[in-house]
């Protein structure tokens, strides 16, 4: 049935985008770093998973369990080593934004370059759960279902933690009023590093999921960064629920465009939405900014 097929495709894509965009909104909304290398880290994670699964014979889900903490640690180090000097020298939030954009450009090329040196420019994939499962009478590939499920579980878990826990409240306080966070006993530097690393961990998780069901290449990171940025702006910077909803919306739009119009025009569709949102509702589709 067409409806089931489209729903599963949209949910998988949307769930994946939600993870990537939540990572970015944590990095941009809380840590104030506009990370343009975000998608490159996702691609690097996909290649890491490829190596763990085909090289070391690890189970893909185990690879995911390895990737999450490794990603967290790596991104924490990136923040401490590369971005802290920029935060220190920034005279205003706008200056930090520009500096972080420039620095992460550099990072983008370095990460992409390392992947290119290691694997070349071709497409890679490995076979995992590559059999159809029957969903309401429609065959759907099992790896897609699993990726969608895992993405939604991780996404909702992070959302729950950020909304319910005291520590999540502190992080949201940082997003809402960065200059006053230290007045209520939050250590802004440590919290920013933590948020950045958590965001990095999410994108690494997303990369591992991508490797399970999509062919990936070294050069596709930029497109994912673009889409994540569109979602973050659509959802309202720092607004996690808005981010998840916008990701699902983008998943639906892309699925419909690629199914009924042309697969080559999905980015054009994304971009059209982006422009409309920027012009009509620059604060995001869902409520006020800085939730």
């Amino acid at each position: 049935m067409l409806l089931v097929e489209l729903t599963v495709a949209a949910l998988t894509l949307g769930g994946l985008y939600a993870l990537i965009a939540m990572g970015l909104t944590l990095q941009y909304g809380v840590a104030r770093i506009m990370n343009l290398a975000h998608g490159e880290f996702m691609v690097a994670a996909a290649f890491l998973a490829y190596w763990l699964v085909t090289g070391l014979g690890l189970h893909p889900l185990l690879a995911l369990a390895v990737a999450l903490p490794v990603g967290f640690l790596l991104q924490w180090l990136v923040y401490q080593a590369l971005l802290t000097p920029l935060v220190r020298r920034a005279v205003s939030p706008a200056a930090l934004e520009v500096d972080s954009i420039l620095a992460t450009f550099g990072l983008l090329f370095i990460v992409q370059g390392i992947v290119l040196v290691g694997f070349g420019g071709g497409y890679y994939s490995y076979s995992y759960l590559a059999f159809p499962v029957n969903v309401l009478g429609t065959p759907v590939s099992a790896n897609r279902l699993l990726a969608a499920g895992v993405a939604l579980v991780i996404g909702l878990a992070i959302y729950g933690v950020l909304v319910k826990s005291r520590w999540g409240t502190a992080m949201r306080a940082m997003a809402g009023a960065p200059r006053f966070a230290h007045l209520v006993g939050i250590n802004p530097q440590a919290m920013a590093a933590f948020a950045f690393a958590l965001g990095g961990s999410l994108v690494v998780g997303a990369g591992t999921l991508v490797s399970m069901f999509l062919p990936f290449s070294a050069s596709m990171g930029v497109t994912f960064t673009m889409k994540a940025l569109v979602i973050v702006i659509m959802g309202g910077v720092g607004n996690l629920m808005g981010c998840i909803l916008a990701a699902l919306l983008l998943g639906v739009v892309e699925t419909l465009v690629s199914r009924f119009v042309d697969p080559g025009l999905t980015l054009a569709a994304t971009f059209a939405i982006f422009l409309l949102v920027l012009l009509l509702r620059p604060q995001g589709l869902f409520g006020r900014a800085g939730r």
Partner: protein
Amino acid sequence: MMERINLGAWVVAAVLVMMAVLPIVAPGDYLLSYGINLLQYGTLATAWALFSGPTRYISLATTAFFGIGAYTVAVLGEVLPWPAILLVALLIGSLVAFVVGLSTLRLSGVHFVIFTFGLSELIRQLVTWYEVNVTKSIGRYIFTDISMRQIYWQLLALLALALLIGWLIRRSRLGLALRVIGEDEVVARHLGINTTRVKVLLFVVSAAFMTLVGAVMSPRWTYIDPAIVFNPSLSFQVLIMSLLGGAGQLLGPLAGVIPLTALFEYLSGRFPNYFSVLLGVTFLVIVYLVPNGVIERLRSVFRRRPVALEQKGSV
């Protein structure tokens, strides 16, 4: 002060004239091709800084306009005479820049960066889609009888024109308006400056030069496809060159173009596989060590008292 400006202008003019006669005095394919490279980046970076220097909007749309220029030549190459092609390219590039500028220059800094970041990718995908679905072939061949020397001279003329326009703008009310926008856009609006009009105008001028560079450069390839002419690293290279030299000064971008063209030429020849990594490292080194550009840095070294106000807010 006036005399210093005039002296500088004479020196620049003299260098340009020397460069113009160089291919006649010292013929040689390697030198010529190196000169073309230098002029290409020089013109692109100068054009980039025309808009982005004073307004401090970081544009990554360079490759979009460059590609539009190159594609115009590829499509019209055998239909129209060369000057007419350049005119058409100029019109298309300016029109796209006008529409893009009008719809996006009200955006705040980061949103604008991201928009231009995606614009090139979008145009590339649209052109690819059009070629695949309508013309049924992804690439195009370019047949023109433009020689390497002619490319060199055309680029040199474009560079001279870009410098002249930049110089004239700096001395005009428009230049003053732009500098106020760069310092503080709200203040600029309160002073009665129509910020959107000024920004769009400059964006169009800057994009027109980029489009022409793309058109002039295209005969160097005999075959083009969207991936070649809409190559995103071009935008980054131009950006980093301008930043290294300092986008705030008219001649700043050129100060970055000269060493970096040599460096990139060397790196891509010597370490073709590691080019991307090395490009990234170069980028980081420049952002961390010379955030305001070399010219600004030299100035602060030579000046006794550092001027704190001017240091704030890099491009």
